[in-house]
């Protein structure tokens, strides 16, 4: 008999998004070959994507390449976007993170760079806050940042640390264990608990948000 997989009331749409339907329409137009829709999506989302990518790769030239490749992948795979699996912004940022981590790993292989963990407290990649071009995206990004920061604060420090090392530095569990000096099993447990708790927190905040006027 299969062991049960914990089920939750979590829905991928963690934050209400007035611009979400617009984004989905843009992606639908992209899948039909409308490059103007790609331009609009870029104008709406390039700042958050750039922020994430710069935070990860920490090099302007590399960031440009990665952002371009991320949006290019979105253009080519627009027809495969499934709205039931998450919002467009999340989809874009996931693509961008994956490409950025690919670039980081490639750079490490080529230059044998040491692993340089990136954390949310590290501001070397930038500094000043800038507004997104699209007010709705700016507001949405700001809202999400607040919610995610709130959710992260509920995690014990060591769980938050492994989550950040895995997400923002792309470190494997073994690399995190080496980095933190913790047993691999402990790292795995912390990662699992952190991911599950984050998911539950975000679901809770979402439900609270929906209940509010």
């Amino acid at each position, binding site marked *: 008999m299969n062991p049960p997989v914990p089920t939750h009331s979590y829905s991928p749409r963690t934050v209400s998004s007035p611009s979400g339907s617009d984004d989905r329409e843009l992606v639908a137009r992209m899948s039909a070959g409308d490059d103007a829709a790609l331009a609009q999506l870029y104008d709406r989302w390039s700042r958050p994507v750039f922020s994430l990518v710069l935070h990860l790769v920490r090099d302007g030239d590399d960031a440009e390449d990665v952002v371009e490749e991320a949006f290019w992948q979105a253009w080519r795979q627009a027809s495969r976007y499934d709205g039931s699996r998450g919002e467009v912004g999340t989809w874009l940022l996931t693509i961008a993170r994956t490409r950025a981590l690919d670039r980081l790993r490639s750079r490490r292989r080529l230059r044998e760079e040491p692993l340089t963990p990136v954390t949310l407290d590290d501001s070397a990649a930038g500094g000043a806050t800038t507004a997104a071009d699209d007010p709705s995206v700016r507001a949405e990004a700001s809202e999400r940042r607040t919610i995610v920061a709130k959710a992260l604060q509920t995690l014990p420090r060591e769980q938050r640390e492994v989550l950040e090392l*895995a997400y923002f530095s792309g470190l494997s569990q073994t690399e995190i264990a080496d980095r933190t000096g913790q047993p691999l099993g402990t790292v795995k447990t912390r990662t699992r608990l952190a991911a599950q708790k984050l998911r539950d927190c975000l679901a809770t905040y979402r439900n609270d948000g929906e209940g509010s006027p």
Partner: protein
Amino acid sequence: VSRDVSHSEAAELLPEAALDALSPDDQAGVVAHATGCPDCGPALIALRDALAQLAFAAPPVTVDAVSRARVRTRLMARARADLSVADGSQVEAETGVPAASVSPWPPARAIVGGAPPTRRSWAGSPVLGWGLAIAAGIIGAIAVQRRATLDGERFSAERTALLARVQSLRDSVDARDAFVRAVTGKQVSTMQLTSSAVRAPWAWMFWDHAANRWTLVARDLPAPAAGKTYQLWLVTPRAKISAGTFNPQPNGAAEVQATYALAADSLRAIAVTEEPAGGVPQPTGAFVIAAIANRPGQ
């Protein structure tokens, strides 16, 4: 590479899989299991989406507007190129003719056809079957090779055209940069040329002493008479030196550049005269506009 992952193992590894933090074979194994598992599939999607929210926690950074614009330009160029290729494929799909080219091959049936064989003598013949199969194979191979060649030629031509266009734009930008340098350099002195004519043409001369570069910017010049042209002169105590001929645009604007080494204190005047087309060694016409040079120190 993927390995078989049991349900219990996959369920345990879902958070790490959602972070792409597993080894490649483990990652592929968990994803493969989750794809077909009614429990693990949705759970993996939910975890992935929750963890993807971490992207919003990245501190917003200052992004250079030029950098964003550069990426946008490259991205849109790629998208347009992608669309043009797609359009070609669509035309090809609809017509059977390779896009942007004319098929050198007549329809296959015309090649294989000719005088149709009689059924009585050839129908069911294994020789005919093998012959047709071999012929079709050869034709197919040639067509594929020819298509590849045509594609290569087309892309090569497009690349050449694009490179030429890029070079042309670079030349334009270089020329504009040179113009701006010529009129804004630290060692550039200026002289205003005026006229008493009704239309009141006027001009500025920018003399870049370091580069020996002369740039005349004129406005409201009347069109020269038929068979005539304007000629620019640098007047020194000993000579009137031609700095070239020019014709203004229909709106009276003209920008002329010349390179000529001249001692800083030897210029007495700048003048534009109307002369026979092709220019003359020494001025013969009346001054259209002129300026007395500023003396050094003025």
